[in-house]
């Protein structure tokens, strides 16, 4: 897919673990893992908003477009 999820990069920058983020955002660890590994088909605006709030970043920091 041309959309790349850079959640692991942001987590490393913020020195935060995935389980910590899952707790803050209110998502299950498995769902966040799906998102991190790029297996997710779509992301809700509400989820994106919560992640951005928890990581103090912009949607563009998490999602990136890479042409195939």
């Amino acid at each position, binding site marked *: 897919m041309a959309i790349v999820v850079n959640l692991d990069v942001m987590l490393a920058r913020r020195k935060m673990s995935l389980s910590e983020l899952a707790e803050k955002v209110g*998502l299950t660890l498995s*769902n*966040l893992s*799906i*998102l991190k590994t790029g*297996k*997710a*088909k*779509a*992301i*809700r605006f509400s*989820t994106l908003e919560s992640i951005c709030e928890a990581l103090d970043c912009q949607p563009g920091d998490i999602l990136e477009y890479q042409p195939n």
Partner: protein
Amino acid sequence: MERIKLLTIALTVSNIFRILLIAFITLLTFVFIHWHINPEAYSTVKLSGFEHSNTTSLYTTSFTITSTTATNVGNAEDKVMFLQDISQLSLYLFYLQSVAILIIWIFILQQISKLIRSVRELQTFRNSNSTTLRRIGRYCFLIFILTAFRWAETETGSFIGIYINYLPVLFMLGAFILAEIFEEGNKLYEAEQLTI
């Protein structure tokens, strides 16, 4: 609640029909075995479905050929076939054909039960259900094939019937279309599951 009640009724009805079909197969087999022991007991039993008719109706188109070598039977089209008249080979074929159709019906009902159970458990749009519907479609096609011909031979003549039954074909098409719809539903379900 109403929906679950309806599905439970449908499931019960399908199970009852399945039991009835098994009982009918057992009875048919018993009669078939008994016929070998005492064929005189069935001397007056008339065989249905071996009547001469070239007709087209809403459900079936049939072509039959009846030939006779006897001189005293008159019109071959009026001849009624008795169980004792037909050859052993044609009776075996008739029995196997009937049992095969009944067994396929049992399989269809089994698949329908599986489908109803999954809908009741709110697991409607799953890949297994589209596979089930495709299987039902294939069973309908087998019924179409098995009901497409009938053959019987007597000492004085023979009967060949070719029947084109539209209902199994229509059910087959319906099942395949539903299988495609269920597959689309499954894709949507999977996409929904992968939406975070």
